[in-house]
């Protein structure tokens, strides 16, 4: 379970997060909606300890990332897969190496087992046979799928998606959304999706929150609240 408690973050006079609190229960996918530039990515990165928060804390399964030591933070992060908006794939590595990197770094399994794991992940993300392509040879949608694949490498408990469907064509967007739903249902991955895409939010979210002017609010009737302001 992830607990976000009274997290605040400001850049100079700009308040990005103002006492933000919410919880992510196991096997639940929550969506944080909000227009571009409201601080959704800042919230995700702050939760992972990539950005310091001004106050508040984020607790992963009872361990606060703000008060954890470096080694503890790394242990927490091994349980989180992060899908970056810009994919952040390593452009000097092919798809297989991108996916296998965290496995090679954190486990002592032999090459054969790593290869088996990568083949399985490629199958799950629908990229079988494309393992030897470099990111530069992939379309935007395929990169997004590989980014999800890399996030799955260590079989994490939580998945964080940062604008997973932004900029994709409708077919690829549906493919990514279907994959996210499959991961939640079949692999019990819980996590957070930040997006400004209402259709994605509706399709994948168990709960939907709106982040606006630093404040976060749970939405019940999403379209009405969003369109009526």
């Amino acid at each position, binding site marked *: 379970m992830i607990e976000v408690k009274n997290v605040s973050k400001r850049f100079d006079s700009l308040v990005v997060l103002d006492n933000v609190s919410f919880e992510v229960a196991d096997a639940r996918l929550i969506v944080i909606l909000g227009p571009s530039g409201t601080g959704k990515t800042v919230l995700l990165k702050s939760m992972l300890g990539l950005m310091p928060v001004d106050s508040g804390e984020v607790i992963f399964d009872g361990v606060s990332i703000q008060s954890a030591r470096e080694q503890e933070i790394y242990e927490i992060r091994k349980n989180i897969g992060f899908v970056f908006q810009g994919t952040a794939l390593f452009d000097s590595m092919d798809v297989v190496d991108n996916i296998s990197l*965290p496995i090679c770094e954190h486990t002592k399994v032999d090459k054969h087992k790593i290869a088996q794991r990568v083949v399985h992940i490629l199958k799950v993300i629908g990229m079988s046979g494309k393992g030897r392509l470099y990111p530069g040879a992939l379309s935007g949608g395929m990169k997004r799928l590989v980014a999800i694949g890399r996030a799955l490498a260590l079989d994490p408990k939580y998945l964080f998606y940062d604008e997973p469907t932004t900029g994709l064509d409708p077919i690829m967007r549906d493919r990514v959304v279907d994959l996210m739903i499959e991961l939640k249902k079949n692999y019990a991955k819980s996590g957070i999706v930040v997006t400004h895409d209402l259709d994605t939010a509706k399709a994948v979210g168990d709960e939907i929150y709106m982040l606006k002017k630093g404040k976060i609010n749970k939405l019940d009737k999403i379209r009405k609240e969003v369109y009526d302001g």
Partner: protein
Amino acid sequence: MPIIVVIATFTGLVSTVQTSYQLIGTVPRYIVGTTLGRMVMIELGPILTALMVSGRCASSMAAEIGTMRVTEQIDALETMAIDPYRFLNLPRIAGTFIALPILTVFAELVALLCGAVYAHYFLGIPFSLFNYGITHYFYARDFFGGLAKSLFFALVIASSGCYFGFKVHGGAREVGKAATYAVVTSSILILVLDFLVALVIFG
């Protein structure tokens, strides 16, 4: 490697021309070999190779790591619980540590060979006499002192490239700036270190 060959070739040639211009007629001719040998091993080989590698490698390290920074690849490493400093810096520092002394020795050999060829054909100094000049006054301290310098230079080159790469925030413009800063800083530090190490080893 091709750049090192070009630099070393002309360093050997020019040094031989200068040495013969200043010394021939006043000292025995084998002293040209002695002077070139010691000059190349103590000073010219290590420093010119280091400056060349600095221009080639410090800039590319800074640009590569800087690009990884702006495209969130370094954040990705952190989210995967991989220490980006260890993952990105260590191989670069180790690689430069191994490669620079090897390149330095190679440059020294090329420079001496070219100097010997020039001395033979243009100054009438036979290879045997040139070789006598190098070997008769060869001190191991000269050779290993030069190598010690190149180890310090390697550390400076790789550290500058990695440091300025990690410092990048923003976009392509900052990546370009980081590459420039890395080269300028490492070049200046190489010159300063050259003096300090020379003071300790040869002073």
